[in-house]
């Protein structure tokens, strides 16, 4: 790459022109092809949910976008530049709160990104206060993650990522390990936070309602191996969304049918007798 190319790629990245692009992407390891032929464009500021049966490679796609995995085919581009590795421009909220640093307080966890960038202490403090306020955790700033509930720990993860002001936030089933009530509260909270922040979000889940509640667009993946993106559903409902509304119920029904087909296919591939089984 020449200096000029690098310069233009760099400025494109800063301007955040072109969102996220997957072109003919395949990702595999040890002779196992997890996903293949992925073509996908995500606009800046769009909230996209990846939905599919477990083991279909949703998380694999996300990890490639985060720069943790290199695709063995095609290219993954973010803001006009190839993804070459993890970057603070692209924050990740993990499913497990193991990703938090247990030896740091909530405040220090959220300050981690700003501290790594070498921001002055006073500025770090301002940022931390702002984002702890956003997720409603100011009162627990000096506690350690081990002293918090599962829902609060995921809030810390979200605040920690947002404190870095990334253009893109990747979320890997962030509410998957929470109980049903907490999960509902967290979905509403995330919807509210996203409406005030409007960053690009790619959100992996296997919960259909969660996807409809949050996404501008829901992408359904086929069952793996060699999973692909099967179909896309734009969700054009006003926020905050009501789970009981007719449009919501209709979309839920269509998504359920679409995914059930994949689940049956994957069970059949495992040798199960699934004829006549309807979810």
């Amino acid at each position, binding site marked *: 790459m020449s200096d000029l190319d690098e310069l233009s790629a760099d400025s494109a990245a800063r301007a955040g022109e072109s969102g996220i692009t997957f072109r003919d992407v395949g990702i595999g390891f040890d002779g196992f092809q997890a996903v293949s032929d992925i073509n996908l464009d995500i606009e800046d500021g769009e909230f996209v949910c990846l939905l599919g049966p477990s083991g279909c490679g949703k998380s694999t796609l996300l990890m490639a976008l985060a720069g943790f995995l290199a695709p063995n085919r095609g290219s993954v581009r973010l803001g006009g530049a190839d993804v070459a590795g993890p*970057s603070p421009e692209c924050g990740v909220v*993990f499913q497990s709160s*193991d*990703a938090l640093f247990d*030896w740091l307080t909530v405040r220090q966890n959220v300050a981690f990104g700003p501290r*790594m960038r070498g921001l002055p202490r006073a500025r770090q403090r301002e940022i931390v206060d702002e984002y702890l306020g956003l997720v409603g955790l100011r009162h627990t700033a000096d506690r350690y993650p081990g002293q918090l509930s599962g829902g609060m720990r995921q809030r810390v993860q979200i605040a920690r990522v947002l404190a*870095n002001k990334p253009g893109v936030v990747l979320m890997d089933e962030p509410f998957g390990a929470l109980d049903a009530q907490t999960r509902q509260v967290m979905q509403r909270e995330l919807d509210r936070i996203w409406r005030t922040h409007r960053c690009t979000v790619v959100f992996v889940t296997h919960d259909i309602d969660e996807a409809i509640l949050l996404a501008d667009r829901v992408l359904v993946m086929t069952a793996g191996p060699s999973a692909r993106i099967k179909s896309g559903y734009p969700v054009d409902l006003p926020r905050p969304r009501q789970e009981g509304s007719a449009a919501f119920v209709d979309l839920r029904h269509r998504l359920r049918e679409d995914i059930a087909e994949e689940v049956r296919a994957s069970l059949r591939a495992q040798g199960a007798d699934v004829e006549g089984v309807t979810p």
Partner: protein
Amino acid sequence: MTAVADRMGAGVRLGGKTTGRRLRAGMLTVLAVLIGLAGWELVAWWYGPALTASPAQTLRAGVDLARDGTLLEASVASIRRILLGWGLGVVVGAPVGILMGRVSVIRRLLDPYIEFFRFIPPIAFVTLAIVWFGIGEMSKIVLIFYTSVFIVTINTIAGVLAIGESKLRAAASLGASRRQVLHAVVLPATVPHIVTGARLAMGNSFLTIVSAEIVSADTGIGALIWQSRNYGRVDWIFVGIIVLGVLGFTCDRLIRILAARLLRRYGVKM
């Protein structure tokens, strides 16, 4: 009024229960020690003073050695060597372990040496240590260092390899450079394993101090044990052994208490 009384009653009952349990545990320890002492007395009586020293004889010899200052001087000399050698072992072993755990080139380069030398006991190096480092303190400290460093390194490597992938990924995606990951994530996440390594190394140091003081040490608990042989003082040997055990136990307790106090937020549980 009754509510307060009730609560107080409950408190007393609760307190009584835990105190009782602790008392029983303490009594079991005392009982075990008493049985040990009785067995020791019996063996000493059976084989006679040429081969053994009874608890009473050991105590008397211990008091004599303490009175003329020998015991304190010897203990201080040994502890000083142990603390210096062991401290160096931890200070060198932990960073080496972290680098070996994180950088596979370094791991491949150093692994053969660690896997080779950790099977060679320090006593095999006593003569070489004296030839190389002289008959002074240096040779002893080097031997204690040798016996500490590998076990700290190996434990630290295990700690580094046990760090959850998501922590390392989170740090990288929050903008930490490889170097920042090393001291901001890998080091703190490995602290419990380093402490375990340090405790095991402390045990090794006490095992090694006697061989380190075999030759040419004029003071130290190991030296006391070896010199007692020349005078045929079995009771002094017993004093040396008991003092070593007590000092080792005390050092381990101190490490545990300090680690639990100072390093609790790193997940050190003792």
